[in-house]
C-alpha cells in the first residue's frame, strides 16, 4: 500500500506553493477581478516557464512526460491560490482532448505549442441553459466547417483554438477549430466570477478538422469529462482548503463578547464540518488521481466520486467562510468572495453536482453488472 504522493511529487508541491505564494497572492486575483484583463498574463508566462502546461505532454512533443499525479499536485495548488488563469480550459480540457483523440499530425501540430505556452485552447461544449445532451446539439459540423453558437465558453475569448462539440451526419463529433479566423466571432460575457473570463463564440462556417473518428464525439467528450473531473476536483479541494483556512484565521483573531469567535461551538463545529468535507473530498481525489494516472477501469467511478465530493466541499467551505467573517466577509474589500465565486464556476464548468451524482451511480451499476 502506497497511497501517497512520492517525495519528488511532494517536492514539486513545495516548489509550487512557494512560487504561487509569491506570484499569485490574493491581490493578483483581485487585479483580474477588478480589471479589464481576461487573465493574469505575467503569471501565465511564469507558469509556462515552470513547465506546468507541459506536464503530461510526452517528451516527443516537447512535453515533460510526467504523470497525472504531478498534474494533480499542480491543480491543487492552482486551486488553492484561486489562480486567475485559463489553465483548466487549456490543460485539463483542450490538451487532454488532443492527447486522447488527436492524430499524430494533430499532436505534432498542437502539443509542442501547448507545452511551450505558445497557444491556449478551450472546450466549446455548452450552447444554452441546462444540461447538454447529444440530441440537443445544435452546432453543426459538415464538410470541414462548423456553424453554430457556443455559450458560455470558459476562456473562449483568449484561447487560440477550441475543441468544439458538434453534431454531424455521422453523429456527434469533436472538432478542432482555430479561433483566429474570420468564421469565428467572440464576445466576452459577464459572469459570477470575473477572475476567469468567458465568451460567446459564433461559428459561421469556420474551418474545422475532426478530432478522432466522426460519430464518436459524444463518447470522447464523456471520457474527456472524466479525466478533467479529477483535475477539477483537485482545484476545488485546494480552493476549499483556502476557504477553510481563511475562516479559521479570522475566527482566531476576531473577538465577540470578550472572546475569540473561534471559542464558540457554532463556529468550531461549522469549521469542523468543513474539515470533514474537505478530507472526504481529498480522499476521493487521491483515488481519482490514482485511477487517472494508471488509466484504470475504475476511472468513471473515481472521477465522479472526486467531483461530487469536491463540489460539495467547496460550496460549503466558501459560503461558510463568508458567514464566519460576518459583515466584513460580504464586502468587496475582503477576499472571501474569491472562493465563493470560483466554487460555483468550477461546479458547473464540466457538469454540475446532479450530473455527476447520476454518472457515479451509473458507473457503479456498470461496474457491478460487469
Amino acid at each position: 500500500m502506497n497511497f501517497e504522493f512520492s517525495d519528488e511529487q511532494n517536492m514539486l508541491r513545495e516548489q509550487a506553493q512557494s512560487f504561487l505564494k509569491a506570484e499569485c497572492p490574493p491581490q493578483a486575483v483581485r487585479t483580474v477581478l477588478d480589471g479589464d484583463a481576461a487573465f493574469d498574463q505575467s503569471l501565465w508566462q511564469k507558469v509556462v516557464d515552470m513547465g506546468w502546461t507541459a506536464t503530461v505532454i510526452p517528451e516527443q512533443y516537447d512535453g515533460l512526460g510526467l504523470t497525472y499525479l504531478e498534474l494533480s499536485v499542480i491543480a491543487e495548488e492552482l486551486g488553492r491560490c484561486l489562480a486567475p488563469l485559463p489553465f483548466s480550459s487549456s490543460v485539463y480540457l483542450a490538451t487532454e482532448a488532443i492527447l486522447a483523440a488527436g492524430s499524430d499530425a494533430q499532436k505534432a501540430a498542437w502539443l509542442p505549442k501547448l507545452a511551450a505556452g505558445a497557444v491556449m485552447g478551450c472546450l466549446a461544449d455548452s450552447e444554452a441553459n441546462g444540461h447538454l445532451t447529444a440530441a440537443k446539439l445544435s452546432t453543426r459540423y459538415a464538410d470541414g466547417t462548423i456553424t453554430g453558437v457556443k455559450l458560455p465558453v470558459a476562456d473562449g475569448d483568449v484561447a487560440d483554438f477550441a475543441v468544439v462539440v458538434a453534431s454531424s451526419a455521422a453523429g456527434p463529433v469533436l472538432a478542432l477549430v482555430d479561433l483566429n479566423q474570420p468564421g469565428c466571432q467572440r464576445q466576452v460575457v459577464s459572469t459570477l466570477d470575473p477572475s476567469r473570463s468567458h465568451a460567446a463564440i459564433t461559428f459561421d462556417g469556420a474551418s474545422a478538422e475532426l478530432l478522432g473518428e466522426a460519430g464518436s464525439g459524444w463518447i470522447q467528450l464523456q471520457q474527456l469529462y472524466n479525466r478533467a473531473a479529477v483535475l477539477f476536483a483537485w482545484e476545488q479541494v485546494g480552493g476549499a482548503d483556502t476557504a477553510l483556512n481563511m475562516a479559521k484565521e479570522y475566527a482566531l483573531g476576531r473577538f465577540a463578547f470578550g472572546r475569540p469567535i473561534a471559542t464558540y461551538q457554532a463556529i468550531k463545529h461549522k469549521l469542523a464540518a468543513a474539515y470533514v468535507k474537505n478530507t472526504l473530498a481529498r480522499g476521493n481525489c487521491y483515488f481519482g488521481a490514482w485511477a487517472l494516472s494508471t488509466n484504470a477501469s475504475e476511472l468513471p467511478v473515481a472521477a465522479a466520486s472526486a467531483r461530487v465530493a469536491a463540489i460539495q466541499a467547496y460550496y460549503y467551505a466558501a459560503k461558510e467562510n463568508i458567514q464566519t467573517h460576518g459583515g466584513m466577509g460580504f464586502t468587496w474589500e475582503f477576499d472571501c468572495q474569491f472562493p465563493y465565486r470560483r466554487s460555483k464556476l468550477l461546479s458547473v464548468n464540466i457538469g454540475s453536482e446532479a450530473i455527476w451524482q447520476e454518472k457515479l451511480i451509473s458507473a457503479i451499476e456498470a461496474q457491478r453488472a460487469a
Partner: protein
Amino acid sequence: MDFNDTPQEATFRAEVQNWLTANVPTEAELTGLDYIGRAKLWQKKKHDAGWACIRWPKAHGGRDASAIEQVIFNQEEAKFDTPAGIFAIGQGMCAPTMMTWATEEQNRRFMPPMASGEEVWCQLFSEPAGGSDLAALRTKGVKDGDDWIVNGQKIWTSGAHYSDFGVLVLRTDPEAPKHQGLTYFFLDMKSPGIEIKPIRQISGGANFNEVYFTDVRIPDAQRLGNVGQGWQVALTTLMNERASIGGGGGGVNFDSVFELAQSVDLGERPAIEDPSVRRKLADWYVQEAGLKFTGYRSMTALSKGEIPGPENSIGKLVGAPKQQDMASFALDLLEQAGVIWDEKLSERAGLFQATYMASPGLRIAGGTDEIMANIIAERVLGMPQDIRVDKGIPFSEVPTASS
C-alpha cells in the same frame, strides 16, 4: 378558521384599495426622479392623505390605526409597484425609539416630517470591531458644556448619505462595564465632522456606509434616556429591527425555481420531471408555506388585538439560507450558463446570479444565522445564555483582538 376579514377589516381594506387605486403614482408623475425622489414623492402623497405611518398618533403624523390595519395597508400597497421605501429604518426603528424616549416636544418636531418623508433618518450602531456584539462599540462621546463631542467610526449604516438625521449610541464611560457605559443620542447628519463612505458589497451593491466622526458636536438636549442608559434605549431600537428586516420580498423563491425547472432540461427531460428536483422543490415549498401560515397566525393575533407569539422569529433564519441554497441549485440547473450574469443573457435578467451573490449578506444582516439561533434558543425556548466573560468588568478590560 377562515381567511376572511372581519366586517370592520373589510371596510378598512376597501377604503385602502380605493385610495391606492386612485393615488398610486403613475410613471408619468415619477419621470425624471431618482429612487430617492420617487420614494419621497409617494411618501408625501400618502402623508398628505393621512395614509403614512398609520399606526402612529395623529399628532405625530400618523392615523392612530391598529396593528392589523397596518398589515392590511401593507398587503394592499404590496399589490402595486410603488417606489420602494428609503424610510424603513427611520420609520421602523428610529421612530419607535424616539416615541418611547424623546420629549413630546421633540416628537412633535421630528415625527411629522419623518412620516411625510421630508426628513430621512438612519441608525448608527454597528462598529468595525463589534459585529454581532453590538454593545462592544467604542465610538466615544465626551461631555463638553452643553454638548457631547463625538469621535470614532460606525459601519453598516444604510442610507447615511441621503439621511437628514440619525440615532446613535456612544461609549461615554469606558471604565464602566460594557453595557453600562453607553449613552444614546439623535443627531443632525449634516453636522460638521461627519464623513460618509459607501461600502461596496460582493453583490455589487453599496447599500451600506462607513460613517466617520471627527469632533462632531451633539447637543445634550438630543440625548435619549439618561447618561449610561444607552443600552436600554438601544434595545427599543433593536426590538424593532428584527421586525423590519424579515425575509424580504425579491430574490429566488419556490415559484422562480419551479418555473426554471420547467424550462431547462436535466438529462433527457425537463428538470421538473426529475424526482430529485421535485423532492427539493417540495422541501422549499413546505418551508415557504410554513412561514406564510405562521405569519397568518401572527396576523390573527394582531387582528384580535393580541401580541403575536414568538413564531415569527424563525423567518430570517429559514429564509436567508434557503435563498442561498435555492439560488445555488438554480445555477446548477442552468449548468455552464449558470455563471453568466448579464441582464440580457441570463434567465430572469440574472435573478438567480444576483441572489446567489446577495444571499450571503441576508444570512448576516440584522443578526447572523448563529445569532438568530441563539435568540430562538434563549428568548423562545428559555435556554440560558452562553458563558459571558465580558460582564461586570470595565469595558476597557474586556479582552479584544488587540489586547
